[in-house]
């Protein structure tokens, strides 16, 4: 006679109480391909219940600046790894410098991102803020670019100095992108 083997009920360990983990991303680039790494990882970290901050600096300021966030561009100029999806050939560097090529490359990349059901930058930043992510603007960049807090989306908590960021990231894993 056999009886079904019954295991004790296992409850997943969602680790709620032991997340003192903290991650800070430094987003320093404003090209379309370079803004996604920090946004994707910050979003994933938030989904794991981790305290997450993004410090936007230099060209990364475009990600949170109302005037620019919808209009980030991609070029393969200077990126020798660029090849059409699935192809062995590399795109000639000189071609990237021709008129309208940046617009075309940007359009193509945006389509590929949309096909994966990944949001465009403004929606993505909003999602991260809604999920409890902390967004900070870099004081030096703000001064250099002549920006004020009104130029940025409301979700940016504050304009902070490098020293403020170092204090804020105490005990955190810091990732520069």
């Amino acid at each position, binding site marked *: 006679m056999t009886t*079904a*083997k*019954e*295991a*004790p*009920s*296992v*409850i*997943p*360990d*969602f680790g*709620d109480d032991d*997340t003192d983990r903290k991650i800070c991303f430094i987003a320093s680039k404003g090209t379309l391909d370079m803004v996604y790494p920090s946004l*994707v990882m910050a*979003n*994933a970290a938030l*989904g*794991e*219940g981790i305290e997450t901050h993004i410090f936007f600096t230099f060209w990364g300021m475009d990600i949170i600046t109302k005037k620019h966030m919808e209009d980030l561009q991609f070029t393969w100029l200077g990126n020798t790894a660029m090849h059409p999806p699935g192809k062995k050939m590399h795109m000639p560097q000189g071609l990237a410098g021709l008129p309208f090529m940046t617009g075309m490359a940007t359009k193509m990349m945006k389509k590929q991102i949309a096909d*994966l*059901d*990944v*949001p465009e930058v403004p929606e*993505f930043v909003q*999602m991260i803020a*809604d*999920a*409890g992510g902390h967004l900070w603007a870099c004081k030096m960049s703000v001064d250099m670019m002549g920006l004020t807090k009104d130029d940025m989306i409301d979700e940016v908590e504050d304009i902070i100095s490098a020293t403020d960021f170092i204090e804020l990231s105490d005990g955190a894993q810091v990732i520069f992108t």
Partner: protein
Amino acid sequence: MAVTTIAGSEVQVDDEGFMTEYDEWNEEIAAALAANIGIELGDSHWQVIKFLREDYKEQGETPMLRRVSNVGGVSTKELFQLFPKKPAKKMSYIAGVPKPQGCV
């Protein structure tokens, strides 16, 4: 893979305790799973859980948070309130569907 009893029903679960058979799920089980992780199910929870189950059945994969928000109609903010800290994992655990596999 093991068999366990939840809310009086025998169900198959994986090593972490997630159900592996879509059709073994019922609402009593969902309530018991939710209680396991300290969640009492209200109307908004049910809306999310029902969306997850329907969408999984149609699409063959568990929706990510963005889809639950855009298509399922429950905002990101609310999802983090309903299923604190790890909404994607918690809601799929309760809904008896696999953990979502995507990045965003």
